[in-house]
């Protein structure tokens, strides 16, 4: 999006930032498995209620659009997703919990959105859907919705290990004009406040999710781009392998945590 409204004074933000002190970056350590918490636990009661009730969760609008797309024929092959995969409620159960997953033909991990587009190209003979476009968000929300409540299950083997390591390296690397690393906020200072917001641990278990700031549904890569902008770093392009590696690392870091798609976040 190239527009945004700003009606808030930045002085208060500066004041709020001062309340936050970063620990030494060198002391960074992964959060012990038992102490991991979803961003859901850190948000207000009203926002949690918005996520919990399908009738009021605005993400449901995208999920229903995704269901319609799942059953609609696309491309010159004249096939719908359902032509091969049948009822997504059965065939897609648990699938999103395993993404990003290794793609043998491409010899690297691909995320759910890429998998949908590869399927369109290979099976449906249809053009790819644009990253962050309404249709790709709807389809990925519908597919990921079938894994709601199931634990993230990222399998790391010798093929995926180098990509996991690359993602971890990005997470710990200082970057941007503020010279910050992801770990400084999300490992060392989670639960504290950055401006008025509580810093979450950054477990990406609810994507695509409805963000009140966006007033719409968005992907994990859109959120990562926002983080990069926050660090005054140049964000990678949508679909960049660096982003997929980071997604892989984050989903592995959240292994065992339950998927929440479509989650709601402030």
């Amino acid at each position, binding site marked *: *999006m*190239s527009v*945004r*409204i*700003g*009606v*808030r*004074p*930045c*002085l*208060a*933000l*500066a004041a*709020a*930032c*001062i309340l*936050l*002190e*970063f620990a*030494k*970056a*060198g002391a960074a350590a992964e959060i012990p498995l038992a102490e991991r918490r979803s961003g859901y636990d850190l*948000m*207000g*009661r*009203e*926002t949690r*209620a*918005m996520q919990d009730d399908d009738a009021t969760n605005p993400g449901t609008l995208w999920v229903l659009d995704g269901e319609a797309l799942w059953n609609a024929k696309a491309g010159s092959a004249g096939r719908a997703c359902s032509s091969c995969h049948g009822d997504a409620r059965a065939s897609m159960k648990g699938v999103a919990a395993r993404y990003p997953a290794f793609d043998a033909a491409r010899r690297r991990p691909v995320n759910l959105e890429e998998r949908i587009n590869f399927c369109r190209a290979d099976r449906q003979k249809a053009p790819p859907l644009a990253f962050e476009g309404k249709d790709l968000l709807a389809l990925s929300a519908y597919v990921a919705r079938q894994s709601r409540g199931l634990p993230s299950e990222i399998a790391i083997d010798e093929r995926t290990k180098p990509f996991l390591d690359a993602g971890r390296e990005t997470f710990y690397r200082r970057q941007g*004009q*503020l*010279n*910050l690393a992801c770990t*400084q906020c999300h490992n060392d200072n989670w639960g504290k406040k*950055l*401006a*008025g*917001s509580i810093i979450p641990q950054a477990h990406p278990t609810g994507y695509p999710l409805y963000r*009140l*700031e*966006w*007033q719409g549904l968005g992907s994990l890569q859109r959120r990562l*781009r*926002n*983080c990069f*902008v*926050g*660090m*005054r770093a140049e*964000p990678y392009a949508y679909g960049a392998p660096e982003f997929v590696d980071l997604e892989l690392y984050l989903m592995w870091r959240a292994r065992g945590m339950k998927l929440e798609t479509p989650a709601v976040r*402030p």
Partner: protein
Amino acid sequence: MTSRRDFLIAAGSLAGGIGLASAARQARATPAAAQDAIRKVTGGAPVRRGRVKLEISPLVDNGNSVPLSVTVESPMTQADYVKAIHVFAEQNPLPNVVSAYLGPRSGRALLATRVRVADTQTVVAIAQMSDGSFWSGSADVVVTLSACLEGPV
């Protein structure tokens, strides 16, 4: 390692950056504009405090979408019911937020929605009863600031 001094510089830069990314401050409705909007609804009739319960979180995660509900004490019978519920936010660019028209078939006088709250302020709900009287309730809401917002792309 980050010294406290380095961090304060970084924080200032972060805040400044977000300020730059923001558009110019918007014109705001004033409490006087809100009073005008309320008078349009009441026709100048007196508004009594009470019977109207406006629920909104006192501290919101994000002002873009704030759950709000209004309930009005009323038997909701043919003889005695709530005709309308109006909501006003005095610090928004426009004071009018939403107006709902209901009747005895509603069973209860309830409206639940999600609203935009531009800044920390008082939100007011006014109910118009079938006997022509007006009642009001209000709630204060504090809007906090977020960090790492969507930047120019």
